[in-house]
């Protein structure tokens, strides 16, 4: 195509003419667009949308992964089983408790750390690097590390408790301490991520607002409560949702540190799904559990989007 022709077609394309047959140029553009998008969209459809459909379908079947061909349609039986037997309810309950515990501790601590790091500090960069180390460390290494830290007889934490005169704790082998231990570990692992998000939010708060309020006689606390925190409500909501969705999908600690125990006290839902599908070979029931988990996560994301759209738009 010559340069002259191209200028002509470009200028023709600038005028929008809907409902007219596509020009040769437009057809060519479409073809190029398909070429650029096809690889991405193909993988997206195969590995995100197809599994979604497969999961929805299989939640109505009874089958095993070892022999998927021998499947049996059972209607809503898998969902009825979830209500009838208490494994699903308990596992979801434990998972919600876990997520709630993580969010309840991560939010205030990450926020406090972000405020601290946003002020003039010696060694600010070093502190920021330190709190980010667990974020880039894998969940496997973190879980391994913490199962040794929390070991009842030779763990570092019990060694430290000895020094300050507190009796040794069983931690992961206790039905009451196992879940709080996992929450503490997740807090250590994720608080840096929350801090980075809050820091990004804090940098968007104009400092003049606080300074003006201070001149008018407001205390630091008043500035924090009445200016900084309201301005960060969107960031906070986002961190809450990220941490909730992340916690609901936690797997490695339950798999590596407690095997869901003791007495299923840490039987987090993704670990339960893994066990049901790959160990107990009840893939249909596992699919039904996955559908419920998916709906829970979708509901949380929807609420987030609705809130972000409607309110708190400063």
């Amino acid at each position, binding site marked *: 195509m010559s340069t002259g022709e191209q200028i002509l077609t470009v200028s023709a394309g600038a005028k929008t003419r809907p409902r007219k047959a596509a020009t040769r140029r437009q057809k060519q553009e479409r073809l*190029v667009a398909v070429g*650029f998008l096809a690889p*991405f969209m193909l993988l*997206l459809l195969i590995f995100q949308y197809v599994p979604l459909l497969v999961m929805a379908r299989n939640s109505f079947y009874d089958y095993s992964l070892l022999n998927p061909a021998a499947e049996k349609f059972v209607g809503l039986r898998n969902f009825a089983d979830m209500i009838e037997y208490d494994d699903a309810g308990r596992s979801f309950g434990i998972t919600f408790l876990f997520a709630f515990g993580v969010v309840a501790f991560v939010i205030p601590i990450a926020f406090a750390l972000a405020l601290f790091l946003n002020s003039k500090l010696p060694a600010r960069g070093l*502190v920021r690097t330190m709190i980010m180390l667990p974020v880039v460390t894998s969940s496997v*290494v973190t879980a391994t590390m913490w199962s040794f830290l929390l070991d009842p007889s030779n763990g570092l934490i019990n060694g430290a408790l000895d020094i300050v005169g507190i009796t040794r704790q069983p931690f992961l082998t206790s039905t009451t301490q196992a879940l709080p231990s996992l929450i503490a570990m997740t807090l250590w692992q994720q608080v840096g991520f929350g801090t980075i998000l809050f820091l990004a939010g804090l940098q968007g708060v104009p400092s003049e607002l606080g300074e003006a309020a201070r001149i008018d006689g407001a205390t630091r606390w008043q500035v924090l409560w009445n200016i900084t925190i309201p301005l960060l409500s969107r960031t906070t909501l986002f961190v809450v949702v990220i941490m909730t*969705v992340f916690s609901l999908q936690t797997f490695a600690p339950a798999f*590596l540190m407690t095997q869901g125990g003791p007495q299923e006290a840490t039987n987090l839902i993704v670990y339960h799904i893994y066990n049901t*599908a790959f160990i107990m070979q009840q893939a249909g029931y596992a699919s039904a559990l996955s559908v419920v988990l*998916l709906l829970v996560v979708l509901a949380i994301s929807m609420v987030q989007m609705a809130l972000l759209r409607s309110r708190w738009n400063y």
Partner: protein
Amino acid sequence: MRTTRIRRTALTLVIILLIIACFLAPYAWVVASSLKNQFTVFGDVTPLSWRAFVPVGATIENYVSLFERTNILRALLNTAIVAIGQVAFTLLLCSMAAYALTRIKFPGAHIVFMLILLTFLLPIEAMMVPLYQVVSGLGLSNTLVGIMIPWIASPFGLFLLKQAFEELPTELEDAARIDGAGHVRIFFSIVLPNVKVPMVTLGLITFLFCWNSFLWPLVIVQDPARQIIQVAIAQQGSPTQLPNWGETFAGATVATVPLILLFLVLQKYFTQGMATSGIKG
């Protein structure tokens, strides 16, 4: 006035030291203990002494037996192959798709965009059972390709690059188009060279994600020869059933050090990418 300032500075320093101790102590203990024999590891913890965090009388025997006894070297190599492949294909496919969505006008663009947007909401890790069936149905179970392929079309990557492409001024491209350059040439020789920072950021985040992934590789690969590093580490055992803690610590150190080094060198990009994922998500 003066004493309050001194007190305040002292308090700040104490908080800083406390934070550093909280986050650094576990790493120091693991790395130091990986260089000790079992007897010393236990002895330094009960009663706890400063020696727990310092490799006094270091020995590399844990590392020697780790590399001799287990297939960790193979696992490291597999992980490197998967990570590099995943980074390369993610960058290529995401940038191509981002180019189409920002530079080419075509009907149905917003439908395509909605399809991508929706996948952001899917808790894909929680969908491992159907994903396992899809990937093994394609004959990709027990392969390195099977480990990486589901994550290549990354909606996060697309959004990061789409944002960058939109911010890039189009004057240069307009000039090139008038000179007769097609989309392929504009993409490779004008757009890509001008979005290096977001590309590096996406590459790093993808590498981190891939290196640390666990549940999916655990599910899709059973063949020990195709195992990746996190699964290899996970199968070393728990504190109570282990003859030697030091060897597990050596494994954890080997699995973590490459990423921490990468993070320390390129921290700016990591933090930027994570903050972006926060703001744009």
